[in-house]
């Protein structure tokens, strides 16, 4: 047991908390912790409190807590399944620690369970933010005693175990009996497709669960109870005892349910423990890099005339393209998000037949001369770029190669411009998809173009801000690529930058609405663009003037 604990501690440090422990890092951890607490409070306020209100006030006649808990636990299970695909693949197969640990006299089952516990920690991060507030909301709603919260903590800790066991088992089987691990990149792409497939399924389920008509809430609840709950019970039978433990926390039935729930999860843990001997070691030893092909030197493509900047740009793209984790978090998120929106808008548009209401949603034509409408549209378009992490992780993504930026005879300014341009290209592709969506919704093409110009300038400006964030606090010490993007707070900070910009445009819209400003939208676009060009000029000038200091924090 002590060996498992020691191993888990080491793996946790190498997989999740890589980096030095100097004062700066400690400060950044404190800052990160403060942000997480802030987000937690926000989720409690926005999700937990409404749940508490629904339970305590609206439906006293119906045992809504049973329904809500019956939904929360399976939804948490589904969330775990989606996120654990990546964390299991990353911790079990992509982490570099395996090659150091394999020669050590460690039992495969000890390694297996330690890695499993590490992958589980990642799930707790997510569940902590989104499930715990809901469970607390139920507690507040039913005015529960301390015992409920004790039960809640136990159930919460056991919550992700079985879904993670299922995912781990499936991945072990896939890796053991197919040749997929011979090409790690292919393996990651298969994982990504699995995640996307699950995500779409999840959205469907969540969508149907959320279709609550407040005018007929009794009927909706009855539908949930008669249709969705039995479905979830069949899908996740192992959560029934967990739900029962929380519902009946103050009687003997609750104790029995809790013991059953603990027992089921212990069996799952034992299953994964002994699976280590049978499967894990065998799958690890077939892990190989890319296939080697013999090179015919005469056919090699030697440098074309694209120039240094072109090569810097190409290096960014090739690295992202060939690293599935980067591809998913940097490219697909930015491009797919608006694309999915477009798809669902079109589907909704064609099926509903409510042409007018759809057009209303897209800010009506001929309304743009009301300046506030222009700014609301600008804020909305800017919001679409908030998922972009290309610039805010561009230095972090260099990882152990970061020193190379400082050795080559290319100015830091030029290198940073290449990274900013790369991020801008991705963001502009995302925004163009949104523009197409707006066009499909019959928005005036002139209005679209008049909005696109300032939005593109905002994108460029944001990406300079975002890269500055990453230049100031780059996360270049990471064990695997996930840490460079997924557990990098810089992405979160860049989202705050975008939201601040949206907020600014919102405030301007509000002021214009109150004052009642009207002006031709082309003129407004011109004025906003001119202001943005000036701002951009100042930012670029500051980058250029300080180019010798830009990479100072990249050590």
């Amino acid at each position, binding site marked *: 047991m002590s060996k498992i604990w020691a191993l888990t501690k080491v793996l946790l440090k190498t997989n999740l908390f890589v980096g030095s422990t*100097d004062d700066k890092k400690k400060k950044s951890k404190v800052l990160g912790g403060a942000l997480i607490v802030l987000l937690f409070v926000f989720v409690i306020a926005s999700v937990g409190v409404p749940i508490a209100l629904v339970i305590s006030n609206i439906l006293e006649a119906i045992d809504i807590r049973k329904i809500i808990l019956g939904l929360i636990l399976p939804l948490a299970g589904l969330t775990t399944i989606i996120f654990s695909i990546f964390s299991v693949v990353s911790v079990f197969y992509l982490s570099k620690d395996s090659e150091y640990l394999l020669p050590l006299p460690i039992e495969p089952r000890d390694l297996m369970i330690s890695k499993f516990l590490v992958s589980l920690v990642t799930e707790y991060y997510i569940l902590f933010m989104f499930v715990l507030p809901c469970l607390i909301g139920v507690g507040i709603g039913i005015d529960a005693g301390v015992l409920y919260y004790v039960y809640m903590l136990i159930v919460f800790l056991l919550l992700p175990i079985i879904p993670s066991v299922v995912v781990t088992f499936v991945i072990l089987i896939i890796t053991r009996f197919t040749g997929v691990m011979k090409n790690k990149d292919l393996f990651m792409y298969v994982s990504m497709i699995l995640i996307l497939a699950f995500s779409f399924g999840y959205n469907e389920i969540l969508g149907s669960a959320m279709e609550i008509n407040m005018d007929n809430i009794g009927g909706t609840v009855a539908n949930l109870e008669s249709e969705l709950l039995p479905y979830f019970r069949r899908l996740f039978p192992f959560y029934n005892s967990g739900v029962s433990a929380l519902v009946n926390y103050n009687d003997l039935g609750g104790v029995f349910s809790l013991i059953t729930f603990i027992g089921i999860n212990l069996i799952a843990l034992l299953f994964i423990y002994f699976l280590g001997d049978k499967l894990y070691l065998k799958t690890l030893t077939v892990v190989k*890099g*890319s*296939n*080697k*092909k*013999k*090179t015919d*030197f005469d056919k*090699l*493509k*030697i*440098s*074309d*005339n*694209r*120039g*240094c900047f*072109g*090569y*810097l740009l*190409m*290096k960014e793209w*090739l*690295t992202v393209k*060939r*690293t599935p984790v980067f591809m998913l978090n940097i490219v697909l998120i930015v491009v797919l998000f608006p694309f999915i929106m477009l798809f669902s808008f079109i589907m909704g548009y064609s099926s509903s037949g409510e042409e007018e209401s759809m057009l209303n949603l897209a800010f009506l034509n001929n309304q743009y001369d009301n300046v506030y409408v222009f700014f609301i549209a600008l804020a909305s378009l800017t919001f679409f770029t908030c998922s972009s992490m290309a610039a805010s992780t561009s230095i972090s993504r260099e990882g*152990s*190669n970061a*020193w*190379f930026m*400082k*050795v*080559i*005879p*290319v*100015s830091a300014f030029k290198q940073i411009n290449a990274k900013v341009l790369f991020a801008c290209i991705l963001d502009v592709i995302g925004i163009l998809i949104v523009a197409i969506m707006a066009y499909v919704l019959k928005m005036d093409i002139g209005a679209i173009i008049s909005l696109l110009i300032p939005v593109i300038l905002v994108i460029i400006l944001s990406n300079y801000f975002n890269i500055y964030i990453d230049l100031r606090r780059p996360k270049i010490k990471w064990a695997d690529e996930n840490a460079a993007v997924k557990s990098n707070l810089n992405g979160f900070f860049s989202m705050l930058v975008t939201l601040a910009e949206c907020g600014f445009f919102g405030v301007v819209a509000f002021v214009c609405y109150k004052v009642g400003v009207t002006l031709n939208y082309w003129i407004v676009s011109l004025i906003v663009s001119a202001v943005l060009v000036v701002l951009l000029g100042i930012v670029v000038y500051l980058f250029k003037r300080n180019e*010798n200091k830009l990479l*100072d924090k990249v*050590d």
Partner: protein
Amino acid sequence: MIKLSNVSKTFGKGFKAVDNLSLEIEEGFIHGFLGPNGAGKTTTLKMITGILKADEGEILINDIDISKEPTLAKKEFGFVSDNPDLFLKLKGIEYLNFVGSVYGMDKIKLRENIFKYAKILEMNEVLNNKIESYSHGMRQKIAIIGALIHEPKIWILDEPLTGLDPKSSFTLKEMMKEHAKKGNVVLFSTHVLEVAEKLCDKVAIISKGKLVFDGTIDEMKNKVGEDESLEKMFLELVDDE
């Protein structure tokens, strides 16, 4: 020529990794840079190449101050890091093309040099594979090719022989000799004292961030006062600190 004048570097709360170091690496010599683990060798090389900024002092690369004109100074040298895991997602040829473009190389010259060095170091058959598929030694070789293809006058090599097979190791040592013979600068760090003894014209020994010796092997013998092996003299000099 590389010239360091009173260079110091402190990390964290007062740990002085390099302490008032002054050193001149002249043309026409292979200069070995020796020292125990944690002595400050890599920190010094990182300051020379601009990866780290010196807290105090001045570093000149062919009379160009690296802190004032970094881009110009960096054109003067080729650097091989002690960690050869570079751009693993790129193919060997893509990496070399990238390096060529960064140094503004002519396409014909680049092709010539890639062919020359890839053949010498027996990498020509794997250039179209991703670097992540290379062994440690092959990664070291591609890093060496990348550092040398733009024909720099100054070679700065941090543990360049680590991981190389005997034939490639021999080839690289011959290349270093030839480069120095042409009146160029070779500065390399190593832990292998036998290599330093056989290869270097001069050695600089650093211990706890301070320079404890700089000169030829014969000068070292005079200083220590005995006709010992480099290993024994090295230990004596380092222990004295």
